[in-house]
């Protein structure tokens, strides 16, 4: 019996040993599986991160500029993470080639130009493809086209959101850059990078380059942000917590309190032992631009006694409801800290316009001691947005603003003022010409009266100011007036315009060969002889003093009293007329009343009038400083 029992005991031991072996094997298997699963999970996480980065990657091809041995492709990283460019593809109708560019790195918001050497001929329609190491593709069909001008802009534009790499100016051109409301930092032109035009523009403004460029150049425009602004309302909590909403949970309390820290502050507290709670102060705010930089600043003051756990966070929620914890603090115990200032660069969060939300989060768990409590004050909350400007470059202009004249007599001098001129020329500077064309309305013929061109030297009387020797585009300022003053026609037009009364329209045409353009111009109004009043006939010119009666125009408004400046117009053959007896005097002011006739004396000091029978006498009538009426008086000299 004892032996049986003993053998059973041995059998049990044997069985137990086997069971142990089996369990040990199973355990080792479990360990192995756990290891494999961990490895698999890590692999899955890595894969998931890679997929996320793949989606987060955002870049585009801005430009392609051909070079002697290939081309330069400009790529802009518009995403929030780095981009590594793996290959650049060149796709034509007959060939597809991918060039390894050695994983060129582009930082977020940066633009990089990659030089690609290739023997392939890039023509219109060739697709330039850029492939990142995350498998994303951006393409551009050559040649790059200029984006559409924003509403309200009169020029075709190239849009530079922040900066460009070098952009080809394929035509000979003057460059005008416009910027929409912010600061223009600099324009760098051209080939050798040696010249920087640094301009600051507040509001809408622009500048033009001072000279033309021929050939294929490149240009860089960079616009940096204007003055920073803070979209947070009442971030100082000076007198209350208006603009903010607060929510508390558990045992937390919140409110505004006069802390004498730039007025008051808001707080979240758990004021009793063995309690817990949390509270949020939140505010939504709009950001209507994509900033070039954004900085979060705030102050906090945290005091606590025997706190089991405290946790504070500042969170920004973007328009896509993604939460970004930009600052956090946690711990336990006691704290008697004073005000602490925090500043964080949050530029990477503000990638789009829209409604954002800032959350000041506090969670406090107090301990058992009777004095256990915790309290945090928030103050001086600000998010300083530095705008990212857009700038616009243009080298186009149109001809719709050419000035025109109505009823211009054939030999009346006139003034034309130009400003804000931009030109495009396929020729050099000397090819610029100004053409004055008269339209004979009786025949419909257009007759060119005068033209000046860049290489021509007008007489000193024919241009103003500075007796310019060339009609030089660079002399047309953007903010002033370039004054072209014609003293006479270059050509004798008497044969072309037999009856000046029919010369109803004169157009001034500013032209550059093979070009078009626009120019703001204004000009003195002129009148046809048919409008002239009271032709005064001088019977003799061998005496020195004449009295001329001039009727004031009856078209003026009786409610106004005008002052007239009598300007003696220089006309043909250098007739010099002087008013009154105090010679020489080129002008005089005369008070005119409504429908009044003015009598004035003319003293003729120089009268080489061998062939002159007529001249014109100009009255300019002012209301305040503005010309409201001009009167030409024809003076006919009778022998």
């Amino acid at each position, binding site marked *: *019996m004892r032996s049986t029992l003993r*053998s059973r005991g041995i*059998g*049990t031991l044997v069985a137990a040993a086997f069971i142990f072996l089996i369990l040990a094997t199973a355990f080792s*298997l479990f360990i*192995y599986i756990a290891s494999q*699963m961990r490895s*698999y999970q890590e692999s899955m996480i890595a894969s998931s991160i890679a997929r996320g980065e793949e989606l987060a990657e955002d870049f585009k091809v801005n430009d392609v500029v051909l070079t002697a041995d290939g081309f330069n492709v400009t790529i802009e990283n518009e995403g929030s993470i780095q981009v590594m460019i793996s290959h650049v593809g060149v796709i034509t109708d007959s060939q597809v080639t991918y060039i390894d560019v050695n994983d060129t790195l582009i930082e977020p918001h940066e633009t990089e130009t990659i030089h690609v050497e290739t023997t392939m001929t890039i023509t219109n329609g060739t697709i330039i493809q850029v492939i990142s190491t995350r498998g994303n593709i951006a393409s551009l069909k050559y040649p790059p086209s200029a984006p559409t001008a924003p509403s309200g802009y009169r020029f075709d534009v190239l849009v530079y959101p922040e900066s460009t790499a070098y952009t080809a100016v394929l035509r000979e051109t003057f460059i005008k850059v416009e910027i929409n409301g912010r600061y223009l930092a600099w324009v760098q032109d051209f080939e050798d990078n040696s010249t920087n035009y640094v301009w600051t523009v507040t509001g809408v403004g622009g500048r033009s380059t001072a000279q033309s460029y021929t050939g294929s150049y490149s240009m860089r425009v960079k616009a940096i942000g204007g003055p920073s602004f803070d979209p947070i309302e009442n971030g100082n909590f000076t007198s209350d917590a208006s603009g903010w909403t607060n929510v508390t949970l558990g045992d937390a309390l919140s409110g505004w309190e006069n802390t004498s820290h730039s007025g008051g502050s808001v707080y979240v507290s758990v004021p009793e032992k063995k309690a817990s709670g949390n509270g949020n102060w939140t505010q939504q705010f709009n950001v209507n631009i994509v900033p070039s930089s954004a900085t979060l600043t705030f102050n906090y003051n945290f005091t606590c006694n025997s706190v089991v756990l405290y946790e504070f966070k500042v969170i920004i929620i973007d328009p896509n409801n993604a939460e970004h914890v930009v600052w956090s603090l946690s711990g336990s115990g006691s704290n008697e800290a004073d005000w602490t200032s925090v500043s964080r660069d949050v530029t990477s969060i503000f990638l789009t316009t829209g409604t954002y939300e800032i959350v000041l989060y506090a969670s406090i768990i107090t301990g058992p001691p009777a004095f256990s409590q915790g309290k945090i004050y928030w103050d001086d909350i600000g998010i300083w947005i530095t705008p990212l400007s857009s700038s616009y470059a243009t080298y186009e202009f149109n001809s719709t603003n050419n000035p025109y004249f109505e009823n211009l007599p054939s030999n009346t001098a006139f003034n034309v003022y130009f400003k804000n001129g931009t030109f495009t020329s396929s020729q050099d500077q000397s090819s610029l010409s100004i053409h004055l064309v008269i339209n004979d309305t009786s025949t419909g013929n257009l007759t060119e009266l005068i033209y000046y061109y860049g290489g021509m030297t007008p007489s000193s009387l024919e241009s103003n100011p500075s007796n310019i020797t060339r009609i030089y585009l660079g002399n047309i300022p953007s903010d002033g007036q370039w004054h072209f003053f014609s003293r006479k026609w270059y050509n004798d037009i008497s044969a072309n315009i037999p009856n000046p009364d029919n010369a109803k329209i004169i157009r001034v045409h500013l032209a550059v060969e093979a070009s078009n353009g626009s120019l703001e111009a204004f000009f003195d109004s002129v009148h046809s002889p048919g409008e002239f009043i009271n032709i005064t006939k001088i019977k003799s010119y061998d005496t020195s003093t004449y009295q001329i009666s001039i009727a004031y125009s009856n078209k003026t408004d009786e409610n106004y009293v005008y002052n007239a400046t009598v300007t003696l117009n220089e006309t043909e053959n250098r007739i010099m007329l002087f008013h009154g007896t105090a010679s020489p005097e080129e002008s005089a002011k005369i008070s005119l009343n409504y429908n009044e006739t003015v009598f004035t004396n003319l003293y003729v000091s120089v009268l080489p009038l061998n062939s002159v029978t007529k001249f014109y006498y100009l009255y300019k009538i002012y209301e305040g400083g503005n010309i409201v009426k001009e009167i030409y008086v024809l003076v006919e000299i009778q022998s």
Partner: protein
Amino acid sequence: MNKRGVSEIIASLIIITIAIGLGSGLYIYSLKFFADFRSSMGTKLSLATAKADERFIITYSYYNSTDSTLHVFIYSYGDIEARIVAIYVNGQHFEKETIVNPDEIKELTVSISLSSGTYKVKVVSERGNSYEKYVEV
């Protein structure tokens, strides 16, 4: 009395033998079971990991009507090589076994006669990954 003693010994031996036999059998079976399970599990995880690490795209595809060939450019950007096994053109299967190493772009061609239209080109890998792209002919 002595006989009773012998039978007890025999009985004990039988019991021990049975215990050892059953135990050995069970142990051997469990070893094989665990080994199979481990092998199967390892293979599955390895394949799943490799599938996740394999990433590729079609960068460009065009049809050459002159020689009736469809050209497909595949870029492998995963951690391991892409094992391409087939191309489908509008569901039509073409065996194309090739390996595209990481950061490599490889061109595959398919002889096929296509008329004008839009075609869906799908590249599938041995690991079960695929990428589709529409091609205008």
